[in-house]
């Protein structure tokens, strides 16, 4: 799976979790850029991404990722 394909799938998960079809994230997107991306939504998002890619994040990764790009790095490493 290419990085762009991973990003496309991540965008689908974001749209589903936030229930907003217009959301598009990129490598630089952070929680501050997306309305409603609070700590609880972050956890819901993480679990939805785990389901989407059939992989698991470690606890330090869940709290440590700075932007979507770092999320993609971890996903790419595990799938």
């Amino acid at each position, binding site marked *: 799976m290419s990085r762009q394909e991973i990003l496309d799938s991540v965008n689908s998960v974001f749209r589903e979790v936030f229930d907003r079809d217009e959301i598009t994230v990129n490598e630089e997107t952070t929680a501050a850029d997306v309305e409603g991306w609070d700590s*609880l939504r972050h*956890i819901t998002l993480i679990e939805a991404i*785990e389901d989407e890619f059939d992989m*698991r*994040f*470690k*606890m330090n990764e*869940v709290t440590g990722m700075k932007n979507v790009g770092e999320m993609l790095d971890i996903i790419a490493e595990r799938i």
Partner: protein
Amino acid sequence: MKHYSFEEMTIGMEASFDVIITEHEMEAFRVLSGDENPMHMDENYAKDRGFDGRVVYGMLAAAYYSRLVGMELPGEKCLINEVKLTFANPIYAGERLKVRGEVTDLREGTRRMKVKANMTDEAGNIRNEAVITVSFTEDVSS
């Protein structure tokens, strides 16, 4: 009350208990919630709509899911994050019901788990179901 930590939980862990929802609880819930819908208050109204009698408040029945996770799975450290409820069949006051829950999902990364739960009558028919997402509290005072 149980005191399980996240690390002590395993897939398949179960808990169950029996309950009977009484008229007293129906009245208490009416006062608490302010829900005076005739489906729950008026025997004839409910029967006219095809039910056997006044229907127990769904959210009153669901309160036992709070007990399930708050007292048993995992107990003390429980913090409910999400509940998905399905009210499959009506419950009537005085019926004996079994509340059951089973751990079906554990996420190390987010330290959350899912408990799949249901309430069944004495014949084993499911009256309602829930998927409860739970996180674990920690003492941060020291």
